[in-house]
């Protein structure tokens, strides 16, 4: 005799909902509280190293969206390419990370950013020095385990979810 058919199923369901009423909600109050991002996150921006870049443009070839534009000039004195312009349209970027995987000199990394909404499309374009690494835009550990090792471990648990907000 299965009692699920005699109203017990409903009572069980009601017990589940009342248990959820009494436990702590599992949401974050987003603008004030943020979850830690994965250290291998593929964010919506690139971090570029001018020192390591040789201007080979492999990243531009690898990009399925054609979002990377690179212009180089030959420096005859030092017998090497010099990057004149490195321009990324993050509006086109699909965060696939193929450019990072393609770079033979580890000069390109993905960033962490995920809130880059802008009012104008051309504000999404980043050029040259805007792409360099700085404390505000650290490089993500994606495809670079040596960076990921140094970053703090990700956890989905933030201290405590509270209703009060910092004013």
């Amino acid at each position: 005799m299965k009692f699920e058919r005699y109203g017990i199923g409903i009572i069980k369901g009601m017990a589940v909902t009342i248990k959820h009423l009494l436990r702590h909600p599992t949401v974050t109050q987003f603008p004030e509280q943020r979850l830690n991002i994965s250290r291998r996150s593929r964010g919506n921006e690139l971090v570029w190293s001018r020192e390591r870049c040789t201007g080979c443009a492999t990243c531009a070839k690898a990009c399925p969206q054609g979002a990377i534009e690179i212009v180089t000039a030959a420096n005859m004195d030092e017998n090497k390419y010099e990057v004149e312009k490195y321009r990324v349209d993050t509006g086109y970027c699909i965060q696939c990370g193929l450019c990072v995987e393609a770079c033979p000199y580890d000069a390109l990394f993905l960033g962490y950013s995920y809130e880059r909404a802008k009012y104008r499309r051309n504000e999404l374009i980043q050029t040259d020095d805007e792409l360099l690494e700085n404390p505000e835009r650290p490089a993500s550990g994606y495809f670079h385990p040596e960076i990921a090792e140094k970053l703090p471990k990700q956890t989905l648990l933030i201290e405590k979810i509270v209703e009060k907000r910092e004013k």
Partner: protein
Amino acid sequence: MATTELLNITPLPMQVTPADWPGGYWWHWVFFTIVIIAFVLIMVMGAIYIERRGMARMQSRLGPNRTGPFGLLQPVADAVKVLLKENIVPATADKIVHWLAPIVAFAPVLMIFTVIPFQNGALLADLNIGILYIVAISSVATVGTFMAGWGSGNKYSLLGAMRNIAAVVSYEIPMVLAIVGVVMVSGSLSMNQIVAGQDIPYILMQPLGFLIFFIAACAEINRSPFDLMEADSELTAGFHTEYSGMKFAMFYLVEYAEAIAMSAIITTLFLSGWRGPLLPPWLWFIIKTFIVFFVMVWTRTTLPRVRIDQLMGLAWKFLFPLALINLFVTAIQVVVWPDISQWIFVIVNIAIAGALILLWSKFFKLGQGRIEV
């Protein structure tokens, strides 16, 4: 049994003109009209807050918490927002019907509260046919719903309204039969006297009647799991899809005012209304109303929406026969053993209710499967 008990209670005289009111009856009328309108509006705000926050917590969310302390002002903010919105009337709408529908839907809900006692004798009109009046008047709201569905000139609105008519007409019958059980036990149709006679809450005397009434009331006012006429995922709010601004606010108000009205009726009929120790009677009444409303929110959060054939099947194959049996059993108890202690019937009736639900769940089949009631 209850008839003898009733004799001990001095029935309240029908006062057309209360002597202690200066100016006579009109003051009484004006005072209670204002009290009822204020009561309904404030209770609706409380209900919206409880529903949104309680449901959110049951779903592991927080619910609205931005407006005011703990989101208490959210209903106010919603009301202001919705009142300032543009009022759009569709080109194909039947203009007059479309305009009248919210009023026709709202008026009966307010009128239900005229006969609900807030404490002993504190009600607008102590009709000696109070519960009959409620049954009659609460069905009128459906006309408003159907007018809205028809007047919108939209097939999904009409579909929602049709479903509503089907549900209300079907569920009216078990609901009234459940009420008749209570009326037989108490021996009066007046709401105030039903409360006055309830030494044992009738939820214990009539457990099956309470269950039937609760389910039928949820279906009457189209609360989930019976919210087929609004069915967000199929009909996109059904009969009030085409409504906006103030008129939509009216429908939103009706939805919650109906829920509060049904909670108040259940409180009065089954949970001994304003009676209770220590606290003042009107506070007991409000607390009990909110408890019943919370149970409605609770079932809404737990149970998924039923199909239209399951809705009809539940009414006609499950609730209707059980209501008839309940009526029969109650009639026998009232007529044959009028003098036995009511506590014996409490135990007997709970046992009968359990047995009947088990038995009917065994019989009750719907299509290939079996609805789990």
